[in-house]
């Protein structure tokens, strides 16, 4: 962590009350604008004086970005809806309980009261080398300090690293991918809708961004189709602490059964790469198979194919394998 100072660098603060005025501000200030949702990621950056935007656009006054609304047989969740509101929403609890569990696993009750679902999926990585403000690849430099022989990289990536080995720290993202959610993005040019698994960008494509959001764009809502409503859900997060911690690895799976065989499954993991990863190889392998130990073991082995651990994070390989096994099995082991 960098040294947190008492005073943030000077910026202009804007508090729009509509999506249109927020977009107009983002357009006007371009790359100098900073989108402020719950502030939990933002204030770290600003107080560390690592990020120095010229304008901060605070979305807390935009009512249209808040709340959970029915949409067909699914739901539309405003990007500024707090994680607590997501957890407590009766339809989320009844039909999409995997998202409830994932949101409830994030951080602490106080943070969930303030943190938003849009912020949770759009937050920056927690790599401390990057957040310390050093000139790493992700910050526009030419080195990854976390991928050196002496680096402390216990929490970093085991899959799809490309120069940068930072991971995505979101808990809700894998649940949204498992639910086949869509991210609704607005800009002055209009609306575009992106599948949840395509919302995130790896370092191979753009090493300085975590999401597809471009300058002037705003995530306005997340749509949950009814496709997976009421499916068998599994979410599990492994972290160093039970509360107020980011995942080392998490897994989310939605499964539809046909008798005792798996009819279809969507499964995603996070904490192992720069983006949450959907695991289509696992989904294809388990389709039509019995939900038993043999299927779970095969799925776990598939999930870790291509994993390249760093100096201090080899433990993530069996952790990922075991979490995927449990998700496919659908039950956590019981301990005496």
């Amino acid at each position, binding site marked *: 962590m960098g040294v947190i100072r008492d005073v943030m660098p000077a910026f202009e603060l804007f508090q729009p009350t509509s999506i249109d005025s927020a977009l107009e501000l983002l357009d006007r200030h371009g790359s100098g604008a900073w989108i402020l949702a719950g502030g939990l990621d933002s204030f770290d950056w600003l107080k560390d004086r690592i990020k120095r935007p010229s304008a901060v656009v605070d979305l807390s006054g935009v009512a249209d970005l808040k709340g959970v609304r029915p949409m067909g047989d699914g739901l539309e969740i405003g990007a500024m809806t707090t994680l607590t509101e997501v957890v407590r929403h009766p339809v989320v609890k009844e039909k999409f309980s995997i998202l409830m569990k994932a949101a409830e696993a994030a951080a602490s009750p106080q943070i969930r009261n303030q943190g938003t679902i849009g912020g949770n999926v759009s937050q920056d990585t927690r790599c401390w080398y990057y957040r310390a*403000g*050093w000139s790493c690849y992700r*910050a*526009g*430099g030419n*080195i990854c300090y976390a991928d*050196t022989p002496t680096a402390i990289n216990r929490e970093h990536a085991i899959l799809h*690293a490309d120069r940068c080995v930072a991971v995505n720290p979101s808990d809700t993202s894998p649940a949204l991918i498992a639910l086949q959610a869509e991210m609704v993005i607005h800009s002055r040019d209009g609306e575009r809708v992106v599948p949840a698994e395509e919302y995130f960008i790896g370092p*191979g*494509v753009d090493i300085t961004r975590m999401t597809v959001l471009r300058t002037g764009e705003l995530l306005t809502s997340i749509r949950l189709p009814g496709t997976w409503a009421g499916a068998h859900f599994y979410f599990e997060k492994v972290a160093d602490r039970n509360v107020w911690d980011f995942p080392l690895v998490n897994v989310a799976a939605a499964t539809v059964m046909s008798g005792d065989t798996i009819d279809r499954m969507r499964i995603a993991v996070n904490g192992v790469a720069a983006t949450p990863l959907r695991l289509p190889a696992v989904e294809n392998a388990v389709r039509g198979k019995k939900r038993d130990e043999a299927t779970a073991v095969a799925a776990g082995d598939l999930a870790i194919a291509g994993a390249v651990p760093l100096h201090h994070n080899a433990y993530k390989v069996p952790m990922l394998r075991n979490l995927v096994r449990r998700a496919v099995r659908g039950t956590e082991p019981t301990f005496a």
Partner: protein
Amino acid sequence: MDILTWGRTPWGEWMLTHISWDLLWASLFAGFAFLVAHASYMLLSAHRKRDAAETDRLEATRADLPVRIARHSLAARLFHWVMAAAMFTLLLTAFLPIAGVKFPWVEWHWMAGLVLTASIVFHIIHATVWMDFWSIWVGPKDMPELKAELMRELGREVDGPKPGKYPLGNRLYHLVIVLSALVVVTSGLFMMVRVRTPLFARNPYLLSDAKWGLTYVAHGLAGVALVGLVIAHVYFAMRPEKWWITKSMILGWITRRQYLEHHDPQRWVAR
């Protein structure tokens, strides 16, 4: 416009990170500006070509020459086109993401870099052992030819020397491209040690931060220079009056008439 970008090491020291990508746009602008300026000059000027009657006379006296004069061997042509493919891949994978076209480019980039390196190594050996090594280089001895070519470009009839196998512009271009390519390949090979490949064990500490910065800057400068140079090369290859040279890089030969019209048979003895 910035030229270089700087970062801070964990020890608080300023270090070079790479060039400013503003230089890419500057190189693109320079390349196209040269293209427009040259094309305009060629439209408006009265540059001097060897007179058709003079060429007829020469051709009549040199009927002993074959109808087709071999200019580029198959090996030389293969090298040229492999290098061209590698160069275009390198430039596109390097600069399209900077221009906003995002895709996973790193693996394509270093693989194309290895192809370019291998083709250059091949070319050095081939040119040294099997070709007339010195025919492509320029030096003080070429001053009279430079003067004569400039006068011809200005529309004056002069007796100065005609080119040997390669026109003077071609040799000057070769010199600049050799320098740029050697810088980009050498720095690129070092930079490969910083990314994951199946070829090397990664070693980000191979050089000091300052030396890494200089390596990235050298790679960037040579890279953006190559953008302008490739624009100029493609432009000349497509110009109607140069098409006979381009064609020879495809077919390997030029006609006896082209040989006599554009070259000095004393300096390039056709076999």
